[in-house]
């Protein structure tokens, strides 16, 4: 293909083994996943989930929102609908990671209840407490998988279920128009090219 070696290497290094699983999963049911997205988008909220229970989705979305939080007025992974990307993957091409997610979410809730008795769920904790628990599992495969999926779910093409209305692109200022004209940036605009 196509991929510059450094991009691929950066990706593999950053994604680690957990992220790499997304690559190696079989490619058979992508079209079905797309169709599901189209169907889902035509439905009014509240959204149903295909792989996750509603409770799992709420906790997992809370994790996504700490990994890639809304900062200031900007949207984050929650607003981008990264959870729908993740659910879609777990229901189709990424089904192999479903047990990792099931166990990871259950583990987070056990940790929450042990650390702060009476806690109903990870999602019910304050952001500070959520971050404390996440820091403790940062090196675990579950966190690696959610980290990768949160980023992919925020910045992947919306046809995969996340990056709703391209808000992920808006966070970083990535344009997605089919055509542009020069000047493209500050340095190549005529006023700034001298010297």
């Amino acid at each position, binding site marked *: 293909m*196509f*991929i510059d070696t450094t*991009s691929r290497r950066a990706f593999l290094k950053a994604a680690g083994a957990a992220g790499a699983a997304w690559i190696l999963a079989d490619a058979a049911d992508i079209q079905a996943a797309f169709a599901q997205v189209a169907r889902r988008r035509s439905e009014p909220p509240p959204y149903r989930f295909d792989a996750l229970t509603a409770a799992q989705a709420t906790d997992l979305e809370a994790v996504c929102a700490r990994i890639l939080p809304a900062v200031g007025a900007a949207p984050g992974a929650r607003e981008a609908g990264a959870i729908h990307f993740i659910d879609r993957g777990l229901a189709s091409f990424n089904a192999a990671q479903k047990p990792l997610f099931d166990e990871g979410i259950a583990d987070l809730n056990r940790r929450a209840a042990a650390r702060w008795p009476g806690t109903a769920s990870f999602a019910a904790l304050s952001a500070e407490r959520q971050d404390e628990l996440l820091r403790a599992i940062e090196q675990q495969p579950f966190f690696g998988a959610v*980290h990768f999926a949160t980023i*992919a779910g925020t*910045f992947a093409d919306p*046809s995969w279920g996340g990056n709703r209305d391209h808000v992920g692109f808006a966070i970083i200022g990535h344009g997605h128009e089919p055509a542009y004209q020069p000047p493209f940036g500050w340095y190549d605009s005529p006023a700034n090219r001298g010297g």
Partner: protein
Amino acid sequence: MQQQRPAARFAPGETVDFVIIGSGAAGGILAKELSGAGFTVVLLEQGPRLTAAEFRHDEFGYFIRGSVANNPVTQPQTFRRSVTEEAVQGLNLLYGRFVGGSNAHFTANFWRMWPGDFNEATRLGGMSGTGLADWPITYDELEPYYTKAEWELGVSGEPGPLDPPRSRPYPMPPLPNKSSGVIFERAARRLGWHPQPAPLAINSQPYNGRLPCQHCGWCLGFMCEFHAKSTSMAVMLPLAEATGRCEIRPDSYVHRIETDAAGRATGALYFDAARNEHLQRARAVVLCANGAETPHLLLNSTSTRFPLGLANSSGVVGKHLMFNGNWGAYGLFEHPLNEYKSVQTTRILLDFHETDPRRGFYGGGGIDARFQNYPIIFALGGLPPDTPRWGESFVRTLAHNYNRTLYLATHSTSLPLESNNITIDPQLVDAWGVPAMRVTYRDHADDLATGRFLVDRAMEILDAADVQRSWRVEPAETSFSVHLLGTCRMGNDPRTSVVDRFHRAHDVRNLFICDGSSLVTSTRGQPTETICALAFRAGEHIANFARRGEI
């Protein structure tokens, strides 16, 4: 305008003049040249045929799911660094698996080799422990075909002061300079070097009925829906079909080249989409399957007469695999660059192309300034190394840096080594039951030294460019590549090479091999124009042989 005829259709049992295996940079050109010369051609491509309406600007699909690439589940491969290691299954060699091949979604850098690149072994007095060898052709012999490739395909550029001599200018002026190119050019000049416009196989103007670049920004890894990228897919394959003598047959996975008792190739054995096996008969076979699949196919085509694999009496098939060095440095700037717009790169630097013996190692290369990462991979790997990987600080840095970051990519030599090669894995078979390829690769110390030398130069350019922050992508041993070179090298001696100077297999009179596997040395990290020039040259010679009854 050429008279448009319906594309030809042939039955597999019908003997055509040529069966071509692979539809990328070389296969497309050979299909056009041979059908244009009056011969009947069937071009077999293992992947599907996609139309522009099916192309997607989808980083997750293309880069991460590999939706247009060879699939490591159905076509597994194994990798090891040396014969003493156990080969492990993974995805190490990647290529475009669709009509048009990797050429259809390449970045479109179009660099010529320099005259001295063709006889480095002689000039440097050889290099013990390596397979460094002279090419059997010279720059002067290939120059007319470099020019032909630039004009027939359509290339935008402007020669720099270090460029080799050329018989014609570029057919189109350079594309508009991007912010990365402005910064790079200014800084490199401050250092006394010679930055120049990047030669790109992308239209800067309307060309032969195709649109100019619309600056959408999706070149690197994506096909161009405007057909502004000058590729086999956009240019050569339509011309081949328009002759009325060429059939492009997608979803046709060739797994064996058949030979007869006399040792002549009789055709290509392939699976269709329904996994039915067919033999496409032909008077000659032209193999253009890329530097990984070409040797894979030859090594799988064993017979009583060819026990080591077809065209492999030398034992050289699969050896001298070369990847090209590909490292660099990131720079963060004060103002927005918006590098996601337009082509990946608009300025390059060739001052360090030559091997300089005073450095103490073989190798050279070029540097370009570019957009490197689409959003997902940027978020995972494009930030300064000390950035937190999640949380508010991560998001703030990501949002600030995305449009203020550029990358200086280094492109450099790999030495040809017998110990870097493609063989057949003794255990693994693919989903069709075909024995899988095993890759053995370890960078020569000089390749890594060349990489470090070029990254040092890239950092100097950033320092001269008022960069706010810069950080290195440090050369390290390679295990993944999209540049697949050298595995069926050209040469005059049948004992040390696979094909002769006209791309005819030394061992099989009616088998021709032309693609990245033909390269004797690795180029300075941008092999495509050389592959295209070789294909135009091979096409002319093969057509002449056929006319004279010399096949």
